[in-house]
């Protein structure tokens, strides 16, 4: 299958993944300066799923996501300067400084919000899908969630509703094996797989390798088309791995909550390296790609840094819509 895919498409996906990684690393590198004063959950290692997925979405498709939402936002096309300004708490931030890293929005490209509460944005996405269906459009809603969210009651309520009402929604579960430091093994029975739970509820559900952009592209494209044409929900579970700490700019492996060999194995499966080698690119090629992105990222940080803070009086606006 993969050889059918045009390499230029995969190259675009690679560039997007590298961009997401570079933004996240730049956040990590300057977090210690104390200018990004909010909890920040980096997506490093988990870039493949949103980057591949977004290549099959358009600006009118909608998405919601989680506390770990930077990659989803950037991949959907969200403004990077406005995201960084938001993390800096600036008036120019995508949520005017009221949301921070965990509350990102860019309605201009269909990114409808992220939530800090586990599972919280799942029904919001289902409601968006209900609206899209009522509008008789061919747009779809994408809901990013983690493995932890599948333990919340609202997950089951939302899947059930999407099936009963036949809504055009793609549930994307990024299973990175940990909810903070609690492993999946202590949270769910070992023999049960998340996608099978979803399937038992009446959705088409599959498990995909979330760190292999090539196979992901092959498998996700027909699924998105199916949601679009049939207006029925589909669930995908994508295995992936967070390479940095749960929350913050550093690594947390000194806590020994993850097995060393497990970590090593996932590092080998870095999705960016996977695609670089598939496309036969050299380190020099990758350097050139990075050079092309560096300016844009520097500009974005500059924008965030130089933007003004909102006036204190702004805190008292917006409780009620007008």
């Amino acid at each position, binding site marked *: 299958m993969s050889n059918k895919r045009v390499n230029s498409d995969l190259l675009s996906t690679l560039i997007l993944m590298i961009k997401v990684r570079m933004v996240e690393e730049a956040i990590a590198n300057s977090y210690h300066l104390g200018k990004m004063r909010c909890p920040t959950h980096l997506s490093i290692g988990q870039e493949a799923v949103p980057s591949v997925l977004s290549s099959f979405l358009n600006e009118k498709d909608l998405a*919601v996501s989680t506390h770990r939402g930077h990659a989803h936002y950037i991949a959907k096309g969200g403004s990077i300067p406005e995201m960084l300004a938001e993390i800096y708490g600036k008036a120019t*931030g*995508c*949520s*005017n*400084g*009221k*949301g921070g890293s965990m*509350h990102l*929005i860019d*309605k201009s490209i269909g990114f*409808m*919000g992220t*939530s800090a*509460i586990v599972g*919280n*944005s*799942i*029904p*919001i*996405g*289902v*409601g*968006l*899908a*209900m*609206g*899209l269906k*009522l*509008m008789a459009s061919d747009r779809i*809603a994408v809901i990013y969630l983690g493995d932890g969210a599948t333990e919340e*009651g*609202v997950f089951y*309520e*939302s899947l*059930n*509703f999407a099936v*009963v009402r036949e809504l055009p929604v793609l549930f994307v579960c990024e299973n990175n094996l940990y909810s903070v430091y609690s492993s999946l093994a202590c949270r769910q029975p070992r023999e049960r797989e998340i996608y099978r739970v979803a399937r038992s509820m009446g959705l088409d559900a599959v498990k995909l390798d979330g760190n292999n952009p090539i196979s992901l592209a092959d498998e996700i494209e027909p699924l998105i088309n199916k949601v679009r044409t049939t207006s029925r929900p589909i669930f995908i579970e994508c295995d992936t791995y967070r390479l940095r700490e749960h929350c913050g700019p550093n690594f947390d492996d000194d806590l020994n909550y993850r097995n060393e060999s497990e970590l090593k194995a996932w590092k080998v499966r870095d999705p960016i390296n996977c695609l670089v080698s598939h496309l036969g690119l050299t380190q020099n090629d990758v350097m050139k790609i990075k050079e092309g992105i560096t300016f844009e990222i520097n500009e974005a940080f500059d924008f965030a840094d130089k933007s003004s803070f909102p006036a204190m009086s702004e805190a008292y*606006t*917006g*409780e*009620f*819509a*007008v």
Partner: protein
Amino acid sequence: MSKRSEITFVQAINDSIRQAMEIDKKVLCYGLGVTDPKAVFGTTEKLEQIFGPDRVFDIPCSENAITGIGVGAALLGYKSVMTHQRLDFFLLAMDQLVNSAAKWNYMFGGNTPVPITIRLILGRGWGQGPTHSQNLQAWFAHIPGLKVVSPSNASDAKGLLIASIFDPSPVVFLEHRWLHNSKSDVLNDSFSVEIGKANVVKSGSDITLVTSSYLVAEALDAAEYVLNSFGISSEVIDLRTIKPLDTDTILASVKKTKRILCIDPGASSFSVSSEIIFRIIENLDHKSIEAISKIGMPDIPEPTSYALTKNFYNNADDIINKVLDMFGHTQLQKPIIRKQEHHDVPGKWFTGPF
């Protein structure tokens, strides 16, 4: 002259949803039982036949997700009227109410309205018990981003429900089951009652009685009695909106009467009444105020037994005695004016089960 009709609270609710749905195709109505044969005590009768199953539908028992779904649909401009046959069931939806509905506009920078209306029916009597009878108006009012309304009659129910549906913010609509059969004179056409405006339902000069929902009728009866028997003139304020609270109307009244009794349909402690009394103390010269008091529900869960609920709710007799106490009169032996056969029903029309 616009036409008016004498209709029940139930009919008023039904009319307002139907008219809102006629005005705006993006108004939706859903909730458990909305399309079943009993149609939520008749309040959603025939709506599915008129507007079709895309806009009016029954739902799974998923209060939390349904609330979030309403928020999601609101982001595309859909105005949902959600219905819960008891407030108590809706407690499963606190995450979506508090973390999503109430905050979405604020936390994403103020340009993301969430026009949803959540009808919560308040139970009382006939053994509704601990989990079918709670009025948590103070809870909801405590949450930034929510509006809370609580009509006392059919006309306000219609006007406030239409205002709620077209309000760009989430509104918790507290609807008392015992009011469902009450009738009043209501405009046939669609109209709004402004959210945030209390109603002085009876003017008076000696004491201000502030209340809402089912207790407005009790307060009016008590006011009539203390006037006729003791010459005490009560001004009765029906809050109509719990939040935003119409502080100005209350302050203006208390400035005149110098006495206030808050009659709260919720638990007495940490209540809306407590907040009202604070605002009076904060805003008025305390030397000019002669008496401040409140009565509310006891701070215990509602019991179920007919025997245990006998003196559980405050009625006109309790209000009369409290007023007399505030004026230094001796309290009267009950029953005073409430000589009903059964304390646990609003009238002969209510024969259970809920």
